[in-house]
């Protein structure tokens, strides 16, 4: 349906041509590359020097960039776009001037690191010396002499008295110089002849020797370190200023970073390709409709290149390339989040999208919010030009906004106020009707899922499965609904369905007993259809939430809107409240719409498990590349 046919590509050429071919492929953006499986005489390519050099270059630039970004914040508007340029322009950023900037920034970074280290050391020194501030002796003088032993350090508060007592028989002089609740800092002198006793007492008390590593009087050393810290701070500030002068080079550096990334990607291709002594081999996949263009573009290269494009063989697992219209392709992101279609099944996006559209609108169900969402996101798309998934989600939400507008008109919700009467009915006035509408939509959705399952089984020529797995369940589902509505004979249809299901569900199993249990469990499993349908009641619940929360804010605003100040408050309250409501409900509507698709719908027929078709292309972070040979 909407999966593009892909063809297998094999390219073989002379090793000397590798770089050129790699660059051409990157520009083409058409080839999904499969890693080569090494075989006889064919080794996996080694990126070698080129790759490691490219890797190192990328690392250097990104380190310099992040260093610059730490201190310099770009003054960019809210609506800044990525610059658009050609690949040639981008690669020209890889020039000596820009590398000079990187080098200078690296030098500055080294300086900064030294300053930071110095600062840490000095701070630690101050911390260590602080308890000894009262000591009037130069620390260098606290050393053993011929007849005395000197100690400086800390003793736990509660052990101090014991230690003094233990030293009583010696001539030890213990001076307390500072400390806190836990530990006391002491300075102690003892004659050499009492060394053993004194040290034994100190060990018992848990004495810890201090060694600040500076020679002077503690107070003076602290003052010196503090002075140094001040100078350090000034030096850092000056350095940061110097770093900030490189702010104007930021965009050049970002370009350089992207240029390095592109070169790295080219070099990395080698690791995925096969290499012999003189030739290389690249295998991959191309969309069938782009195959000839790929061949032509590569044939501009010398005739030494061999290109083979063929259909996938049975044992191949081709990647999944979506093919949907411009609008529909945005809904691919919903399918992608669940799982990509595998190589042997159709893309379900097209049948899912209308329901997603419908569900999203029902869960917002406010025309005012719909208009706001559509406008804001259209502006966002227009001004910011997001790419990839972000763009797709934004378009999906724009569509959701339009859907909200439609449902809002039907249900009469305009920012929680019924500015215009409901075209259909107001859910709050007739909640049962709204619940039934929700469940009915769910029934249609599930029926479609079952029918799609049957259709898929038919295309695989599994006629018996298509009949047994689809028709009986549909009989039961609609028969039961008919019974509820009192339509005659529906009970019989449901009964036929149940009997049919019971007799056939175990058909793949061996042995009469396991066939029996298979049928029984299938009938028992019918309860899941009940919970599936009831799950759609969230359409009602979420829809009502939006309206009532809007009403809450409207009521609150109305309460405060007395007098001029009240009006200002009221308006602010309305703005903040409604913004909050839109955000939280748009998120809810999006993910609950997804859930209904994944669990209730895809669960009926969709297998998934495919791998994405990701063409080898330029991958850039800061710039957007134009002028590529090939656009999809």
């Amino acid at each position, binding site marked *: 349906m909407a999966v593009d046919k892909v063809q297998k590509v094999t390219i073989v050429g002379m090793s000397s041509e590798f770089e050129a071919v790699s660059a051409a492929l990157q520009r083409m953006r058409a080839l999904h590359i499969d890693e080569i499986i090494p075989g006889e005489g064919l080794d996996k390519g080694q990126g070698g020097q080129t790759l490691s050099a490219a890797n190192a270059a990328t690392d250097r630039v990104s380190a310099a960039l992040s260093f610059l970004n730490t201190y310099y914040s770009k003054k960019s508007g809210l609506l800044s776009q990525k610059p658009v340029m050609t690949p040639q322009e981008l690669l020209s950023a890889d020039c000596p001037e820009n590398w000079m900037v990187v080098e200078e920034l690296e030098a500055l970074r080294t300086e900064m690191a030294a300053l930071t280290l110095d600062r840490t050391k000095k701070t630690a020194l101050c911390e260590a010396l602080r308890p000894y501030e009262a000591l009037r002796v130069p620390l260098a003088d606290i050393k053993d002499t011929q007849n005395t032993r000197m100690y400086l350090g800390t003793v736990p508060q509660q052990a101090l008295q014991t230690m003094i007592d233990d030293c009583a028989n010696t001539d030890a002089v213990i001076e307390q110089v500072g400390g806190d609740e836990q530990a006391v800092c002491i300075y102690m002198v003892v004659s050499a002849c009492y060394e053993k006793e004194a040290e034994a007492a100190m060990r018992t008390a848990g004495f810890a020797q201090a060694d600040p590593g500076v020679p002077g009087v503690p107070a003076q050393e602290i003052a010196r370190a503090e002075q140094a810290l001040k100078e350090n701070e000034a030096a850092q500030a000056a350095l940061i200023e110097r770093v900030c002068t490189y702010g104007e080079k930021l965009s050049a550096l970002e370009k350089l970073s992207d240029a390095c990334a592109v070169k790295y990607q080219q070099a990395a291709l080698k690791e995925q390709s096969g290499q012999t002594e003189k030739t290389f081999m690249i295998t991959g996949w191309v969309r069938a409709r782009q195959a000839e263009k790929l061949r032509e573009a590569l044939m501009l290269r010398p005739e030494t290149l061999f290109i083979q494009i063929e259909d996938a063989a049975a044992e191949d697992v081709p990647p999944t390339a979506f093919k949907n219209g411009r609008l529909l392709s945005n809904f691919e992101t919903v399918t992608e989040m669940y799982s990509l279609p595998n190589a042997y099944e159709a893309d379900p996006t097209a049948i899912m999208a209308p329901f997603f559209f419908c569900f999203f609108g029902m869960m917002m169900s406010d025309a005012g919010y719909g208009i706001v969402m559509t406008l804001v996101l259209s502006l966002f798309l227009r001004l910011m030009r997001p790419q990839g998934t972000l763009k797709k989600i934004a378009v999906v939400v724009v569509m959701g906004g339009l859907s909200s507008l439609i449902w809002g008109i039907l249900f009469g919700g305009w920012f929680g106020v019924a500015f215009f009467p409901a075209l259909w009915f107001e859910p709050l006035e007739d909640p*049962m009707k709204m619940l039934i509408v929700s469940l009915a939509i769910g029934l249609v959705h599930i029926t479609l899922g079952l029918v799609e399952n049957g259709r898929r089984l038919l295309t695989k020529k599994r006629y018996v499965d298509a009949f047994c797995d689809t028709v009986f369940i549909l009989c039961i589902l609609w028969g039961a609904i008919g019974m509820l509505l009192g339509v005659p004979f529906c009970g019989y249809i449901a009964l036929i369905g149940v009997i049919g299901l019971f007799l056939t569900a175990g058909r793949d199993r061996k042995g009469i007993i396991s066939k029996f249990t298979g049928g029984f469990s299938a009938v028992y499993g019918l309860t899941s259809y009940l919970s599936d349908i009831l799950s759609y009641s*969230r359409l*009602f619940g979420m829809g009502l939430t939006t309206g009532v929360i809007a009403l809450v804010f409207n009521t609150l605003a109305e309460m405060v809107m007395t007098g001029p100040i009240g009006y200002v408050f009221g308006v602010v309250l309305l703005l903040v409240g409604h913004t909050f409501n839109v955000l939280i409900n748009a998120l809810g509507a999006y993910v609950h719409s997804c859930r209904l698709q994944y669990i209730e719908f895809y669960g009926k027929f969709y297998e998934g498990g495919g791998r994405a078709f990701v063409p080898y292309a330029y991958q850039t972070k800061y710039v957007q590349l134009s002028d590529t040979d090939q656009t999809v």
Partner: protein
Amino acid sequence: MSLGIVFALLGVVLAVGLACTGSAKGVGIAGESAAGVCSEHPEYFGKCLVLQALPGTQGIYGLLIGFMIMRAVGLLSGALVDLSVYQGLAFMAAGAIIGIGGLFSAIAQGKTAAAGISMVGVQSNESGKAILMAIMVETYAVLSLLASILITLYVL
């Protein structure tokens, strides 16, 4: 003020109080994880925040029911409805449903969201799946909400 009104207001207490407690716990649990991931990867802040916000909806549902009850009994318009005790108890029942359902589902959702946030920390591209896992829990809060809404609308 009749006893019926008092019971109805107790319903508001249950709806708003319990559901908001649950949301606060849930958002808190998820927030702890989010802070952990952001300490390593500040760039995932946005993704983490979305996941953290998910258990917050139960509080909103509770407020919604509380508001509907207050509106139904005429508390907001100032003209109190003459409620019977039975009607008041019915409103209280309506409040209790979302209160209890919201309380426990928000905490469970907070734990799922926290696990999802850790997942984003490792696999940043999978935040969509993490959100969906948390939304699976949300279903039961929505069902509680629905039951509460239906009762609230049909009491009078």
